[in-house]
């Protein structure tokens, strides 16, 4: 055990975690030249395309130190995006150390700090790495000072590196061996292993990823999951190299995977403790808090007939992504669909994309919202959870509404403090703190309604700060708020899927922008279509989509036929992505349009 090192790589988004992992895999010859590719651990299509990590990924390396000593290094690459911070906290629980990567050009950012705190809470040994020193815009001296200030460490502890050129990789390996403590644990005690991840394999069912704390797990062993109370046989256990390597036994301190033939992802609870069925541990591990969805939206099939297919696709997706929650609902406009809970807007986007890509399901996502608490006059102390604007009681029976607030942390350059401040105030934020991290860089904290983050906050923040702002948030609890439901009427019919809960003070402006946006997005049809925004019976904004008068090209001779056919085919494809509500056809993207009112 003294030759095992378990560590994760944590950082702000894009600071180079996955690329640094590549270098470590190269240096330890875990992957061959032929297998090697950029951000190798980002193996989902979506991860590769978007260039971001979505899921944590564990891999084991065999390493021979310069002194000839053999080590097992278990590395976990983690995502940097705030939506997936729960992935980071799970990974951290399986490690004794963390490489904290800081981009030498961007310095410390919001998730650098939040992920660092997660690691410190778990008593991890932090190895600060100053990455991307090869960049012309790198600022190694200053950023090293920033890191020293943040960690209270010695400047000599910060390792300058480049995941691109390979500079500093040996120093990092040395530091892992010297500074990360070897796991402690008793191989002779009853089995006690922490489930810190799981993944779904179409052919093999659920693969449970665990870290053995005490005792050991053997192939074929009769085991038990403490929290769920279920028992299984360990059909296959092994270690995670680039491919899975089956083993007979995994001992205390080490990381591995387990296959038991479990088909339902729900049966495996990340954070659970695996123990021996006959000789269970008396000491289950703490476990994790359930991940709570932050954003809700309806997902509906474009074609109503696809409802059952959508259900089975969502169920399969959930096997892979336990953070996705959903429940059947129906909408007057859209028919049957699901109310889904997401970790954030990126998560929502990814789910929608995966449904389309992996399951060939074209879906409509309705206006996202957060989860509100409503109280009626009749039962003023009874919480009514509102995850869908149409569930908000009528204004006359409504006593009060509470909405979730967050503590938002934004790090930006001093030049943009004013801009960021105005944006946050516009978004109903209240400044609670402002600290100069350096003369150049400022950390601001706000109390803000979570709902405002959903509505085009990231894009706006990026714009007002010219890209020099990073953002992190943590829930603060519910606060009373003056909210109204803004309904949208198309052709005088309310389309419930377009309703949104909005703070009273912004309702008129947002209502106006919504109808303008919809006028742009809804294609002209054979008749005039009035688009209205209303609060209750009161119309607050109106636009008209003029009827289509001409939808034919004059010429259609030999040379035009093919080109024209393709054009009309494209038009038809676009139409297939539209949803008919009453006699109006609404394109898929119109439902999300309210999120991009300022484009």
């Amino acid at each position, binding site marked *: 055990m003294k030759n095992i090192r378990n560590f994760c790589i944590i950082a702000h988004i894009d600071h180079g975690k996955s690329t640094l992992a590549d270098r470590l895999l190269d240096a330890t010859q875990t992957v061959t030249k032929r297998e090697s590719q950029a951000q190798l651990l980002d193996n989902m299509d979506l991860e590769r395309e978007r260039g971001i990590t979505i899921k944590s990924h564990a891999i084991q390396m065999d390493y021979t130190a310069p002194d000839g000593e053999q080590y097992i290094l278990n590395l976990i690459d983690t995502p940097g995006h705030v939506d997936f911070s729960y992935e980071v906290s799970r990974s951290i629980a399986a490690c004794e150390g963390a490489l904290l990567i800081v981009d030498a050009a961007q310095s410390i950012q919001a998730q650098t700090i939040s992920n660092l705190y997660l690691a410190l809470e778990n008593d991890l040994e932090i190895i600060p790495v100053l990455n991307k020193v090869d960049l012309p815009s790198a600022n190694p001296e200053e950023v090293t000072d920033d890191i020293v200030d943040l960690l209270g460490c010695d400047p000599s502890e910060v390792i300058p590196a480049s995941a691109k050129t390979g500079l500093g990789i040996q120093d990092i390996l040395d530091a892992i061996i010297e500074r990360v403590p070897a796991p402690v644990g008793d191989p002779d005690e009853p089995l006690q292993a922490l489930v810190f991840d799981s993944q779904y394999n179409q052919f093999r069912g659920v693969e449970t990823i665990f870290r053995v704390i005490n005792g050991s797990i053997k192939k074929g062993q009769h085991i038990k999951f403490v929290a769920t109370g279920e028992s299984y046989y360990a059909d296959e256990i092994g270690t995670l190299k680039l491919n899975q390597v089956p083993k007979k036994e995994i001992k205390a301190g080490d990381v591995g995977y387990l296959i038991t033939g479990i088909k339902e992802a729900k049966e495996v609870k990340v954070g659970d403790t695996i123990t021996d069925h006959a000789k269970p541990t008396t000491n289950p591990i703490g476990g994790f808090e359930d991940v709570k969805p932050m954003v809700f939206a309806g997902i509906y099939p474009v074609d109503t007939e696809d409802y059952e297919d959508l259900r089975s696709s969502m169920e399969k997706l959930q096997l892979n992504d336990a953070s996705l929650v959903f429940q059947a609902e129906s909408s007057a406009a859209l028919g049957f669909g699901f109310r889904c809970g997401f970790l954030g807007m990126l998560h929502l986007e990814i789910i929608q994309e995966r449904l389309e890509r992996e399951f060939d399901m074209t879906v409509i996502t309705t206006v996202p919202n957060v989860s509100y608490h409503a109280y009626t006059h009749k039962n003023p102390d009874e919480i009514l959870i509102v995850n869908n604007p149409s569930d908000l009681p009528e204004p006359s029976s409504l006593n009060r509404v509470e909405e979730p607030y967050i503590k938002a942390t934004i790090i930006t350059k001093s030049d943009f403090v004013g801009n960021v401040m105005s944006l946050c105030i516009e978004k109903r934020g209240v400044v609670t703190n402002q600290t100069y991290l350096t003369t150049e860089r400022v950390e601001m904290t706000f109390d803000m309604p979570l709902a405002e983050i959903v509505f085009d906050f990231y894009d706006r923040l990026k714009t007002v700060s010219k890209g020099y702002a990073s953002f992190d948030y943590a829930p603060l609890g519910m606060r009373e708020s003056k909210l109204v439901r803004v309904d949208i009427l198309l052709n005088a019919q309310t389309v419930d899927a377009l309703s949104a809960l909005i703070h009273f003070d912004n309702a008129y402006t947002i209502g106006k922008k919504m109808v303008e946006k919809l006028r742009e997005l809804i294609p002209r049809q054979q008749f005039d279509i009035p688009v209205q925004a209303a609060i209750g019976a009161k119309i607050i904004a109106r636009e008209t989509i003029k009827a289509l*008068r001409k939808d034919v090209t004059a010429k259609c001779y030999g040379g035009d036929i093919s080109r024209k056919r393709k054009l009309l085919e494209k038009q038809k494809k676009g139409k297939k992505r539209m949803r008919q509500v009453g006699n109006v056809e609404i394109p898929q993207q119109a439902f999300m349009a309210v999120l991009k009112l300022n484009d």
Partner: protein
Amino acid sequence: MSGIYIHIPFCKQACHYCDFHFSTNLKYKKDIIDAICDELRFRESEFKNTTVQTIYLGGGTPSVLEVAEVEKIIQTVFDVYTVSSNPEITLEANPDDLTKEKIVAFSNTRINRLSIGVQSFFEEDLKLMNRAHNAVEAHECIEFAVPYFPNISIDLIYGIPGMSEARWRENLHKAIDLKVPHISSYALTVEDNTALKSFIEKGMIENVDDEVAQEHFQILLDVMQLHGFENYEFSNFSKPGFFSQNNTAYWTGKSYIGIGPSAHSFDGKKRGWNINNNVKYLKAIQAGELPMEIEELTVVDRYNEYIMTGLRTIYGVSLHKIETDFGPNFKEYLLKQAAEYLKDHLLYIDGDTLLVTRKGKFLSDGIASALFMVNLS
């Protein structure tokens, strides 16, 4: 029965709205004609078992050629292919080329149909579109030509910025008074990469207005009907017996070969396009190669094309043909898709034939698209 289309890629000057392939540089005129004749010879085998019923010289502006050059091309067709005994041989011509002498000379060739690019009888319209002719030429060339060519078609454009309804009516009446038996009439369309588009974007010319175009189209339908013209294709109107045989072949899926730069060919299953660059075309032909790109049509492509072209013509879409050529599932699909348009009186069924109503005509592309079969990925 098959057709031959020959593209003459030259014009005197560029009309502002035009996105056809042509060059105003006549340097390669002679070479191109030789190449066209060569291409006719190369492709002999394509029409081994069929008779040529129509020959169409389009462009560009074929009337910029010398009469002898035109004759040379037509002669080559006759030399290489089997031509029927009463072929339709059309020459596209612009008024400024059609002097009395040239008309007489063309009438002494095998050409038996003229398609004249009049576009408008009004100076303002012609100027705005940068046509090479003036209003007087527009009028006179028809007067000259009618005695020599009983089969004449003229092009007229409506929906031109600034064109009043009265002026549009007057255009139509001039054509009727001149006893033209066939009119092709188009809404002015703003194509990408045209001068017109850039002038509109810069605010120098008012944009075209769909509302106005739609009004003009209704006038067109009324006036043409009143004077005994049949609207046999969306943009084409003809006295009985004067349908363009060449164009009808495009809309009814007949095979044809296209010769010359940018010309297109169709053999019932494959479409081909010649390269739309005069010099590259020349080089290829001179090297003994056919600079053609080919696209093979799937059953679904052919179904879609049939719907698209069928709905534009008086022949409509034959449900029987859909069933026999494509299969019963296509017919079922088509009727299902058509239901809402039938209900809204944009489509109707006459016996076995699906057709657009008068109300549906100006929306017929959108309707065709809705009847298409596509898969989403």
